[in-house]
């Protein structure tokens, strides 16, 4: 039987597009990461693994990984946990559910760069509403809390410009901005949990809300959770807008907020060091790929029910 070539016509367009707009740029970036190429230069010098060596040895990049992982491992658990909590609470209220949904979803809809400017004012050490409010609490029972009393004595932290606080403040804004999205995903997941399972759990003797959560809600949300966690990881690896808005010059107080995406931007665009920028990009891509593989594995292994 003569082999038909029709299949190429079916998969061809998709293959070509995928190659052109996804695979080719990745390959070019990978190739550039072994050179010292700069935009505008006619040629580039092959430098081997020099760029990667820099990434894994120099203290700047150590700070970059530190900031990135601090941000990711604060934002992911908190935004997933708060998203789930808010979804469960909203799901259990009969009234005002839509009202709360809107409130929690507003930060997701707002442009993050604009919100960053608002936060910059709110967190301003002298005219910001946050520290002003905290100062109002001085002299009240709150002062019994040691940390608070310390703040009243010596002044409250300079949230965005103190290197001990900066990354956590940025992470807090990341959580504030991101958990509404997770909440919406969890709300969608909750609607697909069959009511009868809760009835069965009740008949089986699940008396407390925790029992019902352990027995029905949490396992049935498994597929949603895998998706939400992966999305949150990728989104928090990608954090850029807040950092760029708060610290346009170089990644925060003593580079404590020097996250990966900002490092790529600074090296490749601001300093026109395409080679090292490409190398960071490849490392970044590696992280995202790793997460995606874990997600696929989880989806197929643990949470595939039917």
């Amino acid at each position: 039987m003569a082999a038909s070539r029709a299949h190429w016509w079916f998969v061809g367009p998709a293959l070509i597009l995928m190659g052109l707009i996804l695979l080719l740029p990745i390959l070019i970036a990978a190739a550039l990461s072994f050179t010292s190429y700069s935009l505008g230069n006619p040629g580039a010098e092959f430098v081997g693994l020099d760029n990667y060596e820099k990434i894994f040895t120099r203290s700047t990049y150590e700070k970059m990984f530190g900031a990135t992982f601090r941000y990711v491992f604060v934002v992911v658990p908190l935004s997933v946990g708060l998203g789930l909590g808010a979804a469960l609470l909203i799901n259990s209220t009969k009234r005002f559910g839509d009202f709360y949904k809107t409130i929690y979803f507003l930060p997701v809809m707002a442009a993050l760069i604009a919100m960053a400017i608002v936060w910059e004012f709110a967190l301003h050490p002298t005219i910001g509403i946050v520290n002003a409010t905290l100062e109002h609490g001085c002299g009240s029972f709150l002062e019994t809390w040691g940390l608070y009393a310390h703040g009243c004595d010596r002044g409250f932290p300079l949230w965005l410009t103190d290197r001990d606080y900066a990354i956590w403040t940025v992470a807090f804004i990341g959580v504030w901005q991101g958990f509404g999205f997770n909440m919406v995903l969890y709300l969608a997941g909750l609607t697909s949990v069959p009511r009868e399972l809760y009835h069965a759990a009740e008949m089986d003797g699940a008396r407390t809300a925790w029992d019902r959560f352990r027995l029905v809600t949490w396992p049935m949300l498994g597929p949603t959770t895998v998706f939400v966690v992966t999305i949150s990881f990728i989104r928090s690896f990608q954090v850029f807008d807040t950092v760029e808005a708060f610290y346009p010059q170089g990644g925060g107080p003593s580079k404590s907020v020097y996250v990966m995406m900002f490092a790529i931007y600074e090296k490749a665009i601001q300093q026109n060091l395409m080679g090292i920028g490409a190398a960071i990009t490849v490392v970044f891509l590696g992280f995202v790929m790793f997460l995606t593989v874990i997600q696929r594995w989880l989806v197929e292994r643990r949470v595939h029910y039917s």
Partner: protein
Amino acid sequence: MTAISLSAIEKNFGATRVLDGIDLDVSDGEFLTLVGPSGCGKSTLLRILAGLEAPSSGRVSIGGREVTEVRPADRNLAMVFQSYALYPHLTVAQNMMTPLKLRDLTFAQRLPFLGPLAAREAHGSILEQVRDTARILKIDHLLDRKPGQLSGGQRQRAALGRAMVRKPAAFLMDEPLSNLDAALRIHMRSELAELHRSLKTTFVYVTHDQAEALTMSDRMAVMMDGRILQLGAPDEIYSNPQDIRVAEFIGAPKINLLPGSLDKAGHARCGDMELARVAEDGIVGCVTIGLRPEHLAVCDKGAPGSLTGRVVHKENLGADIYLHVSVLEGAHRLVVRVSPVEGSAISLGQTCHFRRLHGQAMVFGKDGKRLGLAQPSTEVAEVA
């Protein structure tokens, strides 16, 4: 002894009244079926009994204890759901362990990893109980599978197992067979009835299938429009329905209903056919005469009181043949059961004659209630 007692149960969903003053007593060890068309409130009644739904008014008591305000988990009932409601992430064994774990173990003993280590004995005895139950239901080879890997019949058994593994006061079943294919459904009918006999526990079974109700139950309650129309043993309900709706709902093929009238002497008649027995209440006027397909027989032309009609359809079920006969100038259709021998001689379009078997016809008044008939005491000569 009364196991379950429902009194004056009413349920409204908004302005819609779903249950309208239900009184029902189920005795200990009884297999009681609630049967009715969809929307009659039978599932709601079962859910009220389970506690998953609160009645608008009325009281529920189980084993002599008032439980109207008691939550489902504390009523000591087990339920099999129409969708089986197995936990999809747990194996069959874990599904069956769940009710035992939730009731018999403390919170600490239920902790993952630590619990089984700390309370090895308790976990072992639970596993033993699960194995025993699985053996009875012949699903012991499926204990490690997840519900998604089971067929419909196996899932149904697993759901039964989860209900059985604990010794509940009563089993509640909400159309448990309706998701199975026809052959398996008939097989499970007898298996459930046998299970009931061996467990000797109270079963309350909800179905819309009158065949399930007739074949399995000790007593059945026919429900319609939120009321129990008739409560009794299956043969009593079948042969002596007190309401025209019960007569129509129970029995397949459906009972034949012919318009008739009652004369002054109390004889019901329809065309040439006149019933020998007389109505007792002295009512005159329009009535409906009900004749089941097996209460009609083919006869020769001109036999007294016979009906004549044209055969319009023939259903061959192997053991029986049902003839659909158009009578009274095509205004009505009767279904007549004949034996294969008689039926094979009759062809479509043929005119045939048949008579009723005496003493079997039922007469229903205008309100749908059954009218009592008695042998006429005066006309001894005309023996019915």
